[in-house]
């Protein structure tokens, strides 16, 4: 979750993420409570809501990718996916994932806390969606099931 003093991509000053897991390279992925996510693929809705999730503030993308200096931080957010297209079956044998997916619109409200800093996003209705997807997916050992 990135903050910029200019337009997106210009003047990044905060980069909130959980870090890249040592040993495996698991990318910016952390466990959350089972009831944090809801989804209904046929109705084309999903949500993810967390409160006070532990993160690091790496301040910019490059510093995050090299696991450079960081500050302890936390984020809270509530986000909702709403399908804008019909379900589609997708199989990518190159990257070995398959499933049924829907393109979506997403709205989010979020806050972040870092040392001496607090951020509050504008209302969810102001979110600009670039590209969002929900779906049911199989990959890896489940790809051929």
């Amino acid at each position, binding site marked *: 979750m990135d903050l910029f003093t200019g337009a997106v991509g210009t003047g990044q000053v905060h980069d909130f993420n959980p870090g890249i897991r040592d040993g495996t390279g698991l990318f910016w992925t952390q466990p959350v409570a089972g009831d944090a996510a809801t989804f209904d693929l046929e109705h084309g809705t999903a949500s993810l809501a967390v409160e006070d999730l532990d993160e690091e503030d790496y301040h910019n993308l*490059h510093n995050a990718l090299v696991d450079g200096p960081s500050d302890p931080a936390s984020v809270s957010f509530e986000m909702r996916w709403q399908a804008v297209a019909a379900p589609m079956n997708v199989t990518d044998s190159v990257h070995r994932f398959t499933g049924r997916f829907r393109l979506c619109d997403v709205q989010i409200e979020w806050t972040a806390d870092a040392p001496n800093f607090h951020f509050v996003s504008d209302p969810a209705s102001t979110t600009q969606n670039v590209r969002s997807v929900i779906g*049911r997916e199989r990959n890896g050992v489940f790809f051929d099931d």
Partner: protein
Amino acid sequence: MTLNHSHRGHVHFWTRPITRRTFLGSAALAGGAAATAGAWLPQLAKADFDGTATVFPRPIGIGVAPFGIPIHHFPPFPVLGPAVINEPSQITDFNGMVGICRVTGAGTGTNLSTHATTRYSYQVDNGFMDGLYVGEDAKTHHGTFAFV
């Protein structure tokens, strides 16, 4: 921007004491072989998995390489092909529900010392994965993960 260089060599969130989140225990599936997971799904649908996973999943293969640094991730945009979407999941050996997004917007930051406020633009690439996965322990589990 002021980086706290004294924090270098920091402890990642998953090795810190759990102060804000409640670990309710693993939803590990006893000895499950991945090949039989499909047969378990009806039973899983009735189970309660409100707990938090305690065994980490493994990442997908190498995706993109921003700044020439390979990472185990595909952004939702731009679409790289050959499929009409990029791999949404961050974890491999996974069978479940996923969500991914890229959104932008704006908000207000406050310096807590001076109470000065500043407007920022943001980009958020977030997502979730909820379902069966083969963990680092090579066993099959059920868990919910956020991509942040």
